[in-house]
């Protein structure tokens, strides 16, 4: 049984939360866009730069060996957080690059004209556009699994499509960054595998917030991003079975990823290096490792329990607002913490601008999910999203700020 998490105690670890905005304390409710960073993460990077900064791998001198150790320790922590093999844990620059890696390295060589790639209407652009680009080059088609009125995927459509179309890849988001929906990725993976399609799970919004074991997702590939899980910008992760990666040609070429380079052609380094071209995000891996350690210390069960209860509270508070539409599932058991909503009399941009006056940070826009916006029939939504440092008081402040925004615009 996971220990309970005390957000008030944890807040002390996050220097930025002491900051004021417009003369009032910061109420950060945009962690789905990017999370704040604890001291432990900032310090790990600072120590790296001031104690052992050197280029990794192949350096003989002590400094380089230390740098390599810390870099690989970062990988080890990240792999442990999601139960992955370290050889199958590849560092990229963000989740988007991780998905592009698969789309280009696997897609360019394996897709042919007429093949189908299935994504969903609730995907983030990062799991749509790479496939469109590769489809354009290979002649493959991108199909979109519909989303129903409760913000759930139409699995029947998916089953029919898998049965009747030459589907080679299914890309699906684990937790929607707009609707909060937790998708049944293991079930989807089972379906896809039955029909010989590969599966890529975009875990950008799940890995930071709940226990995720790569094996349990059933996916062939899993992508997530450092900056949303208490880590730095400039680093993302692709997880896959080493055998899957071994069977693939590399994506980016350069230093580090080769075994030998000859005028006639080159051979590749062992995993995971084959997919890490050039100087990797070294300090960032150290920082992300510290973030993974921090999360494991707290326990992902405790993180999820806290956020489930905070989401339940937020759904309760927000649903009492007159005329509000909350998009996505209403049951906190089947959703993560992003909560998107619309008000009839306030455009999302005005919401975000006006609550900012109370120090409240929420996001307004399409959240990089324009196809979903069209399905929802809106141009944009406002979105509040929490993390382990948020409290019920933050939700109350949001509700109060929304009421004031309304009054201001109506005055």
């Amino acid at each position, binding site marked *: 049984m996971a220990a309970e998490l005390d957000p008030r105690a944890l807040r002390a670890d996050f220097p930025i939360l002491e900051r004021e905005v417009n003369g009032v304390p910061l109420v950060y409710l945009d962690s789905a866009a990017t999370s704040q960073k604890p001291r432990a993460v900032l310090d790990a990077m600072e120590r790296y730069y001031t104690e052992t900064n050197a280029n990794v791998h192949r350096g003989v001198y002590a400094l380089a060996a230390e740098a390599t150790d810390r870099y690989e320790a970062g990988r080890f922590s990240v792999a442990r957080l999601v139960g992955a093999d370290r050889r199958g844990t590849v560092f990229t620059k963000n989740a988007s690059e991780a998905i592009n890696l698969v789309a280009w390295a696997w897609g360019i060589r394996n897709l042919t004209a007429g093949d189908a790639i299935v994504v969903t209407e609730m995907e983030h652009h990062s799991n749509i556009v790479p496939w469109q680009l590769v489809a354009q080059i290979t002649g493959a088609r991108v199909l979109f699994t519909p989303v129903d009125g409760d913000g759930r995927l139409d699995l029947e459509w998916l089953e029919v499509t898998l049965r009747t179309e030459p589907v080679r890849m299914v890309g699906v988001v684990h937790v929607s960054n707009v609707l909060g929906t937790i998708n049944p990725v293991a079930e989807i993976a089972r379906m896809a595998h039955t029909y010989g399609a590969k599966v890529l799970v975009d875990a950008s919004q799940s890995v930071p917030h709940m226990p995720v074991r790569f094996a349990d997702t059933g996916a062939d590939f899993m992508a997530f991003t450092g900056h949303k899980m208490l880590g730095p910008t400039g680093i993302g992760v692709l997880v896959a079975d080493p055998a899957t990666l071994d069977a693939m040609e590399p994506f980016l070429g350069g230093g580090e990823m080769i075994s030998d380079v000859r005028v006639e052609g080159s051979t590749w380094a062992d995993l995971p290096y084959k997919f890490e071209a050039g100087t990797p995000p070294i300090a960032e891996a150290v920082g992300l490792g510290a973030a993974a350690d921090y999360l494991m210390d707290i326990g992902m069960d405790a993180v999820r329990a806290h956020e489930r209860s905070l989401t339940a509270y937020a759904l309760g508070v927000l649903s009492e607002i007159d005329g509000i539409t909350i998009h996505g599932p209403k049951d906190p058991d089947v959703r993560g913490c992003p909560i998107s909503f619309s008000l009839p009399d306030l*455009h*999302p941009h*005005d919401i975000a601008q006006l609550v900012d006056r109370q120090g409240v940070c929420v996001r307004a*826009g*399409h959240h990089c999910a324009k196809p979903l916006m069209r399905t929802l029939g809106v141009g944009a939504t406002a979105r509040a999203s929490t993390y382990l440092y948020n409290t019920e008081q933050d939700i109350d402040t949001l509700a109060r700020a929304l009421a004031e925004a309304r009054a201001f615009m109506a005055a």
Partner: protein
Amino acid sequence: MGLEDLYQQIILDHYRKPRHRGELAAPSVEVDHNNPVCGDQLHLEVRLEDGRIAEVGHTGDGCSISQASASMMSEAAVGLPVDDAMELIEHFRLMMHREAEPDEDRLGDAIALEGVAKYPVRVKCALLSWMALKDALQTHTATTER
């Protein structure tokens, strides 16, 4: 910087009671513009007569700034010769990028949008209807010249 700059009473007034909102009976030209970043949508219709803007009508969806701006733009544009309107649009654009001193005589109520320049993400909202008007005028010129 206070939000009052951004949300001046006159802006809120145009937002709540948009002028020239609606469709025209006999537009000379119509265009659809949207701001893909925030989802604002605008349908703009213009009737031209003897080289002047005789009527403007706008419909669509958007935040207070884009809606108010469309209303103010319409007020400022109606009655202007096309060339003057094009100049005014450029003047407004420069004001939004803080590259021109605003000229109240020409801008009318739209001068109140000056404060938006301090909020770069909102500048596109304010510009939407003005860029739509520019497009409409150019489209019309191109079609009639052909």
